[in-house]
């Protein structure tokens, strides 16, 4: 059997030196200068940035149950367009991914899609009810090999359940990814509690509802010697708590979404539900603290919290609208704008925050690897000079609930390779 050869010529590898990368079959065969194009399909990549395939710790692919908003197939196509080669799929599906059967189903759908690896996240508790532990071990032992567990969408608010879950998954190096939202403090909450909510008369979502849970959970993780991952950190106070926990040497990791790096609650003044999201958009001060934290490593990685919703769930009054935004196809552009073009991260650090670190947290062996000979050819090419307005009609995702419609964002994924196979070529799905 002859293996296909692809030569990517002249890209800046991790934003550094201009090099050629030769892919043979599923692996990177060679990295260097002046590599032979003999027998290879050549991709001229002058001016482009070559990164390891991006890894997302947090998406909602909605299958099974809400195929009207997204399926594993459409979600992975969106992921590929965004430069991702692996995504974690959250457990809040219908039925909930709280058994080996459901996580294996999602895992298999991902394999069949062929666009992006799908790593299912298992629910922490049965039915996301927060009362009884789901069969965490069975999900880990299944074909899906679940490592990350989360009740995302809901907070594991019972301190004892959280403690037990943290302890239990130590047996197989699992991690609990917490959606930090104290439920009583957020009853009826519609947006960040502050100046804007006071004027708009929308129920306030206080920062302390997030920070109090994170405080408790980093202490719990320290107490039982487990690792905890904080989903979608959104406040300056949360950053301070995670920074403190890390300074103690505790095993705490955290993610931030692209939208929390760019958008603020001022946008809610439009009452346009496209800005309704959980956790809510916060203030400028929070945005700046999150960028600083991502730059200094307090926040480990960027995760999209890609949350597709059908049009009718956003085409209504604020109070009736669903929470969430799609994010896979715009994530890298938002990171380029907020972190690279502000000088806070170079491309090598982007590779760290969007590939190496999330793969490490999720223990994904074949992803987040260096761009070097012998490694799996999970690669993305980015044209950083591109400028364009976001047009949701061109999305691969089944849903269009983007907060960036019409907004100019920099950068464009031109090619994505999943184990040597092009999933995106020339900016379009291959």
């Amino acid at each position, binding site marked *: 059997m002859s293996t296909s050869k692809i030569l990517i010529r002249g890209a800046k590898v991790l934003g550094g030196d201009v090099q050629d990368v030769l892919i043979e079959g599923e692996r990177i065969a060679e990295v260097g200068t002046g590599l032979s194009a003999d027998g290879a399909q050549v991709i001229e990549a002058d001016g482009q940035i070559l990164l390891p395939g991006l890894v997302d710790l947090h998406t909602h692919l909605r299958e099974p149950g809400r195929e009207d908003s997204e399926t594993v197939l459409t979600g992975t196509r969106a992921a590929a367009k965004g430069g991702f080669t692996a995504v974690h799929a959250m457990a809040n599906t219908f039925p909930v991914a709280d058994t080996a059967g459901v996580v294996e189903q999602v895992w298999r759908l991902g394999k069949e899609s062929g666009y992006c690896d799908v790593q299912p996240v298992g629910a922490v508790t049965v039915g996301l009810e927060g009362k009884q532990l789901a069969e965490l071990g069975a999900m880990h032992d299944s074909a899906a090999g679940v490592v990350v567990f989360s009740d995302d969408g809901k907070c594991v608010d019972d301190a004892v359940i959280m403690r037990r879950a943290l302890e239990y998954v130590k047996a197989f190096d699992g991690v609990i990814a917490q959606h930090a939202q104290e439920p009583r403090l957020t009853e009826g909450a*519609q947006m960040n*509690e*502050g*100046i*804007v*909510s*006071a*004027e*708009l*008369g*929308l*129920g*306030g979502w*206080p920062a302390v509802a997030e920070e109090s849970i994170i405080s408790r959970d980093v202490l719990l993780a320290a107490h039982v010697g487990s690792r905890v991952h904080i989903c979608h950190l959104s406040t300056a106070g949360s950053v301070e708590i995670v920074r403190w926990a890390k300074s103690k040497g505790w095993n705490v990791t955290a993610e931030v979404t692209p939208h929390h790096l760019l958008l603020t609650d001022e946008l809610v003044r*439009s*009452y*346009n539900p496209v800005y309704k999201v959980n956790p809510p958009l916060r203030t400028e001060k929070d945005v700046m603290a999150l960028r600083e934290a991502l730059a200094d490593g307090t926040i480990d990685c960027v995760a999209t919290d890609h949350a597709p919703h059908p049009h*009718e769930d956003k*085409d*209504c*009054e*604020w*109070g*009736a609208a669903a929470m969430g935004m799609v994010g896979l196809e715009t994530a890298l552009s938002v990171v380029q704008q907020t972190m690279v073009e502000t000088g806070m991260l170079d491309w090598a650090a982007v590779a760290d925050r969007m590939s190496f670190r999330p793969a490490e947290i999720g223990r994904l062996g074949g992803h987040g690897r260096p761009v070097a000979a012998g490694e799996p050819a999970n690669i993305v090419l980015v044209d950083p000079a591109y400028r364009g307005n976001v047009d949701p009609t061109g999305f691969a995702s089944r849903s269009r609930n983007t907060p960036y419609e019409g907004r100019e964002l920099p950068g464009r994924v031109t090619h994505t390779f999943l184990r040597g196979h092009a999933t995106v070529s020339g900016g379009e799905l291959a």
Partner: protein
Amino acid sequence: MKRHLISTSDLSRDDAILILDTAEEMARVADRPIKKLPTLRGRTVVNLFFEDSTRTRISFEAAAKRLSADVINFSAKGSSVSKGESLKDTALTLQAMGADAVVVRHHASGAPHRLAGSGWLDGSVINAGDGTHEHPTQALLDAFTMRRHLAGAADGGPTMHQGPGDGTGRDLAGRKITIVGDVLHSRVARSNVHLLHTLGAEVTLVAPPTLLPIGVESWPCEVSYDLDAVIPKSDAVMMLRVQRERMNAAFFPTEREYARRYGLDGDRMARMQEHALVMHPGPMNRGMEISAEVADSHRSTIVEQVANGVSIRMAVMYLLLGGNEPAVAAANPTRTEETPK
């Protein structure tokens, strides 16, 4: 004037005074034997009420009818709306019916804003109260009532309870207005703070800290927790309705404690300035935020506020729908005939 009335923060001082002056004209019409004006003949006003409020709906209905508009009442209760029809589909229905103005009351903050900005319908949207956001016509009628009493005398001063005067052309510069009660959940308070500030008044909010929103410090007003300290300085004290059920969510311990600390009773009223007013947007919880003695006193403008509501709503509909010609012309039947439309 703008096409919609969603928030009092959208009104400039000139806009606000134009509405109040127009309402004076409308009030004069109400004193005539024939109360009806032909101004909005052939126009359709829809009262779209997702939340029960007979008082407000009747007020808008009376206002529209006095302007000769066709009025359609579209109440959510028992209709397709309560069976899950979306705001959008309801709006599209009203659009198909050719509504020139939609008066909307909704439990969700921002729903009128959404109706006005979504492209679902072409007519003017008048916010008749949205969630805990705003109730602009209530604030306008409150300001109208204040102006008639506090700036209604010939010299621009207070009328000293000798009945309402005419404050046409005037604002409320320097008047000290105190708003007391559940500011957190009050759309009336939000609309009043913006409007009274625009008209030059100095507003003080008084409430237990639990019933003030986080972020209130950015509002153009003062905040106090001490009603007794503020009462003697006030030109008007507006009491907001406080739902007894709030105590179940720990906003305050008991009704009695609330009434003691933040209620307006005879003793407190006795410490008000001679000319000062007692106001309430209704419906009142007598014995809770206001005692019966105060509600029925000579300082109380509560009944008058209801009547002024019709004049204000006429003015708003006239200005939003009737064009830019002076209200005086439209409000004078003999001259109306000569004014080309």
